[in-house]
């Protein structure tokens, strides 16, 4: 109990509170700019943490990353340009709501359910951290392979276009993920002798290209859409409580899935959002409404990506294993500030741990007022003429791509993916599936090849290990279900067809 009080005293320090507030505002702004991800926001904070007290240093990372994941929803909803890869899964849905005149509702969902997801994720961290960490430690490359395949299958579930086109886009994404030498053999592939391609295709320039740049190109080629009726922007939180009650079950499923995916090292908020959105559609009573501006998927995926953010800290704090790219950076800061990850952090430095929990909850609570302010400011772009917004977006795309590595090549990549995205969209190929393929590609290959090396080329362990067997069953069931359903339908219809011939 005294540890808890100590924790409150540590967070109550002026420097910590100021750090939380400033980094929250910073995270909101960075996350909402297309091309600057939550990981980027965190990485840029590291030099600042050199000058802060340990608790304040960790507080900046916690609050900036939570805000950035939420505010990535804002440009996605208003302009159909996701601010972070974690928002890409449900950008079309949120934008459809905006076109229906429900921007405040869509953004409110992002805000309200992000905060809930963050708080539930934190509670899981507080109550179940050691147990969750055990689960994560049981995951070997065999389990990751099935997980990655399940992730890829979301592409067909999420897409509104024909499944064949969705699979084609996803395969193209997988092809892009083959570029470079970051593959199990360590051999350069498809680099055409170019040094810049050795490192492979990062998901971020691809995301910025296919979503943001191709949107700018579309704006050039098409007439301005009819302006949304000028009206007073409604309350952002109104109706969220009734949505919470109406979509209680999807919300909880989103939280749980987010927590599980967050805990697994290597799978972060991006994957949590994809899987949750796909699950939501799969188990919805009204799947046909998805993609037309239906709140259900937003509720589930919005809760999921923020829940995964908190639970991603579990393996990081207990074993120094990063749950995602954000905690990878946070681990370095923890060491530097003397908060060495390990079980002793939970026992000997329990007051510091309580302080971290309190910061998590605090960050998710102040997200609501700050988020409302941010949304109010951001919605002004809806009223601005397109001719003045698009050049700014173009500049942000270039800036964001350049900022990741101070490398001009990233800007060329954005250009390439912009053109590609434009052509794909015009022909009905979903670009989100392409991004998913690029994000998941290396995980699929890495886990498959390393598993085979470990098992001396035997496929049996993919089905033998207990968790692996469960995941394999789910994957195969999800793969075979549509085929089985189609066969059953055919069977039922079949006896009727020969009847006229016989008569």
């Amino acid at each position: 109990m005294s540890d808890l009080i100590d924790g409150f005293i540590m967070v109550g320090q002026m420097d910590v509170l100021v750090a939380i507030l400033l980094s929250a505002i910073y995270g909101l702004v960075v996350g909402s700019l297309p091309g600057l991800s939550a990981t980027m926001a965190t990485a840029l904070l590291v030099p600042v943490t050199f000058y802060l007290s340990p608790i304040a240093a960790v507080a900046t990372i916690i609050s900036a990353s939570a805000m950035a994941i939420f505010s990535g929803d804002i440009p996605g909803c208003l302009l159909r340009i996701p601010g972070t890869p974690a928002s890409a899964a449900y950008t079309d849905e949120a934008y459809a709501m905006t076109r229906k005149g429900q921007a405040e509702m869509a953004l409110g969902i992002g805000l309200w359910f992000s905060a809930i997801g963050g708080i539930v994720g934190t509670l899981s961290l507080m109550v179940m951290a050691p147990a969750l960490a055990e689960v994560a430690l049981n995951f070997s490359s065999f389990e990751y392979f099935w997980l990655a395949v399940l992730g890829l299958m979301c592409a067909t579930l999420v897409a509104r276009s024909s499944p064949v086109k969705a699979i084609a886009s996803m395969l193209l994404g997988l092809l892009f993920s083959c570029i470079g030498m970051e593959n199990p053999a360590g051999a350069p592939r498809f680099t055409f002798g170019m040094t810049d391609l050795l490192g492979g295709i990062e998901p971020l320039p691809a995301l910025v290209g296919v979503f943001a740049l191709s949107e700018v190109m579309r704006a050039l080629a098409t007439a301005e859409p009819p302006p949304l009726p000028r009206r007073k922007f409604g309350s952002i939180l109104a109706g969220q409580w009734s949505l919470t009650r109406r979509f209680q079950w999807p919300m909880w499923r989103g939280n749980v899935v987010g927590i599980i995916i967050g805990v697994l090292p290597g799978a972060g908020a991006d994957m949590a959002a994809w899987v949750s959105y796909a699950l939501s559609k799969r188990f919805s009573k009204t799947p046909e409404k998805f993609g037309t501006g239906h709140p259900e998927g937003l509720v589930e995926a919005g809760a999921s990506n923020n829940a995964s953010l908190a639970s991603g800290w579990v393996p990081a704090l207990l074993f120094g294993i990063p749950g995602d790219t954000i905690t990878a950076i946070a681990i370095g800061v923890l060491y530097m500030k003397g908060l060495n990850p390990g079980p002793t952090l939970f026992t000997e430095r329990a007051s510091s741990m309580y302080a971290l929990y309190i910061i998590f909850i605090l960050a998710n609570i102040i997200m609501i007022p700050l988020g409302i302010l941010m949304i109010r400011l951001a919605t002004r772009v809806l009223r601005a003429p397109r001719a003045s917004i698009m050049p700014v977006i173009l500049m942000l795309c270039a800036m964001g791509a350049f900022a990741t590595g101070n490398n001009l090549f990233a800007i060329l990549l954005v250009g390439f993916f912009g053109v590609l995205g434009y052509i794909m969209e015009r022909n009905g190929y979903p670009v989100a599936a392409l991004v998913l393929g690029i994000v998941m590609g290396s995980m699929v290959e890495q886990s498959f090849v390393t598993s085979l090396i470990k098992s001396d080329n035997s496929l049996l362990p993919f089905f033998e290990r207990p968790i692996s067997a469960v995941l394999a069953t789910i994957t195969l069931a999800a793969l075979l279900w549509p085929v089985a359903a189609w066969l059953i339908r055919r069977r039922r219809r079949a006896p009727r067809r020969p009847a006229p011939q016989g008569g």
Partner: protein
Amino acid sequence: MTPISRRGVLLGAAALPLAGTALARPALAQTRYPVRPLQLICPWGAGGGTDATARIVASLLERELGQPVNVVNRTGGSGVVGHAAINASNPDGYTIGIITVEITMMHWQGLTPLTYADYTPLGLVNRDAPGVQVSASAPYKDIKALAEAIKAAPPGKLKASGTGQGGIWHLALVGWLQAMGLKPDHVRWVPSNGAAPGMQDLVAGGIDIVPCSIPEARAMLDAGRARSLAIMAPQRDPLFPDIPTLKESLGVEYQTAVWRGIGGPPKLPAEIAAKLTAALEKVAKSEQYAEFMKSRGFGMDWADGAGFGKVMAETDKAMGEAMRAAGLAKS
């Protein structure tokens, strides 16, 4: 009278400061370098270990030189892009960079023509030797037991991981196996995206050995999930005094390490290099630097320009041998 065109005025205005600096720079550079901010190129991404080292060196160097030192992350091409940028920069002392052990490996694989000889070495600031880590539940009590088990096992039965194929820890394993008189692939290498996933797989029971640096394995060692049986270094690490060296525990003479150092482009004027090396020495021996390195668990080491050059040449030779043995070298 010719009317003054707007373009002419603009051109003149643009040319003035250029002419000014062109005249002033050589004179000033000789007398009191540095007169303007420096750039320190980091070939690896923001937030990682090399980035953190670059930033602490930069902030302490700033105090010594009296000019801001800005860290610029030039990533891409698995480190090739940033290393090429350091090499191609202007040899005026205003652009330097953090050079990592990969410079002695990449050219053997045919990824870049750049070698360690394409830099002016200024100072070595960090060195970390790999340990031999096994799972806490593994039966090997000490390095001798593990070495016996490796020798007794059929080739390829035991697996090791901790970095990509041909990465530094893979080569450390190859070197160690060869020093024991075994084939380089007697223990099979499982490529991974770095030491942390390797350590996780070790604890999950997927592999048997992770030869990564001890700071990278530290959290799992502290958690009691893994044990470090030996360190591939000439002497024990003062931060981890309980881990014996390979030589004292196994009698095998083998050592390797990752290192990070500061370097500049070739043909850096000697007086500028001397000034930078002197400043770097003060940085590397400062209390703040020691405190930072201790907190991250990174190994402290210092060598001046000539010493760093020697370390690079030795590593380059050893890496070339290990990579040829493992069939990874192209040249």
